[in-house]
């Protein structure tokens, strides 16, 4: 083990200054607001807190938010790996354009995305009208929320998996083939295990983004209480009622749940990194 120096010697000085600024900004921008939410929550007594978190409306929104987010992140893992594969493994005209399009959900204002998604998937919209005769409604249902969350989460998976695929040694796949492994076996036993850490990171990022997503979802969701109402919207309602402690309580639950899930994913990642190591 290398000895960890608090202050590594460097040809570029300024450790004290940069480290001080880093701590200062992290404090005021991240740490203080997070603590503030918990402090606000503690203004409620236990009974009031319990009433909020056991309420049917809150419970439904909690399940909807985390459920659709997890599902959307899972779908994104599949699509994202596929897109990353196509972008890294094949060269075709327009590959750079396609590569740039992947970032669109990052760049597009979420409200714009929400409105256009709603317009397309509404029963009279371009895609919605294809499904309407089959009795499938997309907009204003959890399915619509799912589609919006898939839309905003895709770049996270693509951008985390892409560099790993890019660096993956083609000889390792060839070695697998010379040993008699079929293409499917090579993918499942050789390629995918090496992508697991990147896939987990992409999943975690897409999931956290989806849980907190507001702008693109509220248009397509329809916001029916207990059916298509997401947690962030519930927080907005409480804020509009000037009920800050209730809003903070919902936020605190969301944040705690997100923390726990991210911690779990990080633990799995640490394990896989230890196991797979670096060659």
């Amino acid at each position: 083990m290398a000895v960890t120096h608090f202050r590594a010697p460097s040809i570029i000085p300024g450790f004290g200054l940069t480290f001080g600024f880093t701590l200062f900004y992290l404090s005021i921008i991240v740490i203080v607001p997070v603590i503030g939410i918990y402090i606000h929550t503690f203004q409620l007594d236990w009974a009031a807190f319990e009433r909020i978190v056991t309420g049917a409306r809150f419970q439904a929104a909690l399940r909807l938010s985390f459920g659709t987010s997890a599902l959307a992140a899972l779908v994104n893992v599949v699509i994202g790996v596929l897109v990353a594969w196509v972008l890294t493994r094949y060269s075709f005209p327009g590959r750079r354009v396609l590569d740039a399009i992947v970032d669109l959900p990052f760049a597009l204002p979420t409200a714009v995305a929400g409105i256009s998604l709603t317009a397309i998937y509404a029963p009279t919209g371009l895609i919605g009208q294809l499904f309407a005769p089959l009795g499938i409604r997309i907009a204003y249902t959890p399915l619509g929320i799912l589609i919006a969350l898939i839309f905003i989460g895709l770049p996270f998976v693509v951008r985390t998996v892409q560099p790993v695929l890019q660096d993956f040694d083609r000889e390792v796949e060839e070695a697998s083939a010379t040993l008699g492994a079929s293409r499917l076996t090579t993918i499942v036993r050789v390629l995918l295990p090496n992508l697991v850490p990147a896939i987990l990171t992409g999943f975690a990022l897409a999931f956290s983004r989806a849980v907190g997503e507001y702008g693109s979802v509220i248009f397509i969701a329809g916001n029916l209480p207990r059916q298509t109402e997401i947690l962030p919207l519930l927080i907005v309602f409480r804020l509009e009622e000037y009920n800050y402690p209730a809003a903070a309580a919902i936020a605190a639950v969301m944040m705690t749940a997100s923390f726990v899930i991210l911690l779990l994913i990080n633990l799995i990642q640490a394990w896989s990194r230890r196991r797979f190591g670096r060659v």
Partner: protein
Amino acid sequence: MELSIRNIRKEFDRFPALHGVSLDIRSGELIALLGPSGSGKTTLLRLIAGLEFPTSGAIFFGEDDASQKTVQERNVGFVFQHYALFRHMTVAENIGFGLKVRPRRLRPSAAQIRRRASELLELVRLPGLENRYPSQLSGGQRQRVALARALAIEPKVLLLDEPFGALDAQVRRDLRRWLREIHETTGHTTVFVTHDQEEALELADRVVVMSQGAIEQVGSADDVYDRPLTPFVYGFIGESSRLPVRVDTGGVWIDDRSLGLAAGDVPDGPAHLFFRPHDVELVEGCGGCIAGVVVSSRRVEATRRVELAVGGDRRIVEIELPADHPAALRSRIAFRPRSWKLFADARAGREACAETV
């Protein structure tokens, strides 16, 4: 397993990498493909493995035409320069991979696979490392594991692509000796690619010297060193000096001086004289010799390398003298190559040569 490569052509995007290469490899032979980078040696190896497919021509494994078989069907052991181990698997899992992915009816039991992995680790002299991960091994150890993995599937031929290229000199020498031993123990037909002539000459039964997508010469270490067939082989294998000369009426000339050598079949016109720098004798006074002005002299281990400028246009040629030879102090040296070879200039369009009789 004999290998027969018949008139193989390979083009990458219309760029020819191999022009009609033919080669027969006997069963149990250890063959080196030797050449500079870009000579097509790795392409040839990958074509044998089935990692590439030829543009035209055929490859036979024994009596079977393997040309259109996939890499999975060919059953070859391939060792890569950068090991290409599966880093998420232990050493034993790496070695057992080829057996584990077989169809169920051909697959040995888990215990058998494990036992086979341990035997192979024994063979490559890494006993007891079954449960390590590749990241915990040194480069030399990784390459041994890669070889054990290739041997596990009982391959028809063993192919190695610059197997020692990424290792340092000491480890290379050890592994070279050890590969020879493994080859003698297992008796696999083995083809390896290298750009290191010392490795090729020391290790292989026959060396295939390649240049610019074609085979220049196939032969034993003695053949390619003592009897090089082409100017390229003379220049590539071992130290050599090359001197542009002129052939006129059966003699070899520089300017208006005769070198006292017989040109044999080489037609009149420009030609190149090749000789080994260490294989020269110094002569006093010059009638039929090569004389030059000393340009520089460098001490290399037990010898002194002297550069001479020969003739009116000062063609540079190198000879080697014992370190304490008094001639090294002179400003003008005359010598005669003890053995030499004369090649007609390639631009003359005729391949002809003459050599020491």
